[in-house]
């Protein structure tokens, strides 16, 4: 198997976190961090193993616990590799402040923010170590975050306990100013049929909201709907589109060990070491890496002949592995969820198409939309600023 150059790498800067989210897959919270030497070696390794440029995502634990290290990594990379290496971050938002936002602005570093919806929904699963909810700490910073980047992505996780609040939570995120909401299920949770029935009602409510929003020209992105519409209107998923673990995307633990994806790092010791595909000091274990890639690309026996193949999320080997222990064994919850969600999404898109909703047509069928939309936004913002003056 011919392996590709690395395009995306997540650097787990620390195993520590100030939150104790109930669904966290990042392993035990330990006071173990990446050293500056290891971080520099990781940047060099990525520059050597990428095709001209790559993107590094700071990950954890909570990466902002190591903000001084982030500064050093970015400085080192800029000095040696200029703009060839781009930086991003995945943060819980509790430690975001103006100093960080200025640093991000100066270094073109964008981040995704983990926030699960309304306060009740968020605080039931995303709490500090002392048990207190983290919602208020984050929302105090949201206006600054969205001023820094109006396109900041809100990432939410749905577990069975929060399923009844999904519609309210997503609407809340749009209402407080997010335009991009990326929502996914914790597939390793103990889902039941009754939970999916609850979730179906939530999606139906959201489909009405989505229809009304697009009809009124309100731009928004809601991943459960948008990504599935795209698999029909644009292109179905192929190997590596949704998940290209160990190939173009990798994760590097605080120790410098390389893993196929952040979901495999865990505590980076004991049984997790079986998933390592090398380290930044001696390089890839190519045979181990090739095994992971081949396993991830292998046709899923349980999906052979399914009409939804190419449209659903069974192509994410990391999710399969977390839920079933095998890259190619699809957990039943994915199949049930996709079979429930796909008709809702298609019915919504059918209606948007039939009613000639202009924003729907532009969004999914006009390749120039991201750019034309951005220019539109700039003009609107400028007009608003002029009016305020």
């Amino acid at each position: 198997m011919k392996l590709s150059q690395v395009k995306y790498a997540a650097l787990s800067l620390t195993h520590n976190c100030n939150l104790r989210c109930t669904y966290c897959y990042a392993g035990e919270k330990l006071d173990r961090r990446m050293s500056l030497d290891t971080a520099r070696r990781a940047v060099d390794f990525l520059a050597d193993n990428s095709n001209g440029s790559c993107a590094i995502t700071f990950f954890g634990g909570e990466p902002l616990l190591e903000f001084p290290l982030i500064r050093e990594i970015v400085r080192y990379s800029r000095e040696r590799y200029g703009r060839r290496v781009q930086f991003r971050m995945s943060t819980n938002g509790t430690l975001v402040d103006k100093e960080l936002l200025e640093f991000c602005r100066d270094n073109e570093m964008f981040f995704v923010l983990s926030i699960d919806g309304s306060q009740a929904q968020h605080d039931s699963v995303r709490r500090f170590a002392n048990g207190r909810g983290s919602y208020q700490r984050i929302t105090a910073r949201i206006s600054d975050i969205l001023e820094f980047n109006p396109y900041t992505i809100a990432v939410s996780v749905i577990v069975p306990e929060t399923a009844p609040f999904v519609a309210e939570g997503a609407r809340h995120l749009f209402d407080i100013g997010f335009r991009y909401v990326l929502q996914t299920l914790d597939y390793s949770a103990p889902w039941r049929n009754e939970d999916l029935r609850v979730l179906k009602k939530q999606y139906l409510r959201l489909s009405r909201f989505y229809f009304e929003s697009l009809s009124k020209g309100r731009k928004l992105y809601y991943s459960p709907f948008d990504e599935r519409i795209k698999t029909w209107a644009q292109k179905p998923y192929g190997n590596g589109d949704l998940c290209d673990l160990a190939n173009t995307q990798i994760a590097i633990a605080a120790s410098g060990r390389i893993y196929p994806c952040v979901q495999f790092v865990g505590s980076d010791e004991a049984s997790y070491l079986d998933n390592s595909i090398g380290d930044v000091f001696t390089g890839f274990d190519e045979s181990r890496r090739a095994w992971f890639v081949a396993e991830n690309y292998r046709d899923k026996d349980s999906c052979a002949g399914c009409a939804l193949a190419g449209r659903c999320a069974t192509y994410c080997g990391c999710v399969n592995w977390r839920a079933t222990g095998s890259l190619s064994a699809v957990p039943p919850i994915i199949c049930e969820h996709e079979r429930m969600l796909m008709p809702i999404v298609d019915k919504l898109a059918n209606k948007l198409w039939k009613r000639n909703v202009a924003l729907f047509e532009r969004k999914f069928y006009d390749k120039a939309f991201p750019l034309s939309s951005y220019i539109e936004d700039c003009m609107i913002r400028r007009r608003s600023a002029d009016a305020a003056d």
Partner: protein
Amino acid sequence: MLRIKRIGLYSVPRYPRGIFAPWREPAALTLIKKGAASAALLAILESCDDGVGVTGPPPVPPDLLTENEARAVITNVFTNNGIQPAPDVIVSIIGSQDDTTEVTLDGYNGSLSVGYEYVAGEDADTFTTALIATIDANTAGSGPYIKATGPAYSSSQLEYLMRAFIDTLKAQGKI
């Protein structure tokens, strides 16, 4: 209990796929891109690309099988199983209330009462969910034995589905 279940056919979406307006860069945009503003512009656009694909690579036409490709694949499966389907045959589908709908099937063997329909494009207007339910009920009963399918992303997927259909009919002694 949650379970994995293959979908043979689902209600084909009515919104189109793979139709893109040809993209020509406006002259004004070319000027912008040549200017200093372009770097900032593209950097901010890049911010939308973290996992959502908003500014990702331009979408390419899908690799959905065309009707002709699908017909060739299915005909091949039928022929390999000793069934010669005639193209574009009008067949009456009789419902449970003795209501009759005449449809033109992509392929049909009258002597064995076996055929297929690859539902693509405007076919979806004829082959409604209700009609397909009637076809499936007839196939499970005394015939005609028709497989309405589509869309398919690959010939192997379609082959698998049609082989399973014929194997089932054989196992049931219907052909």
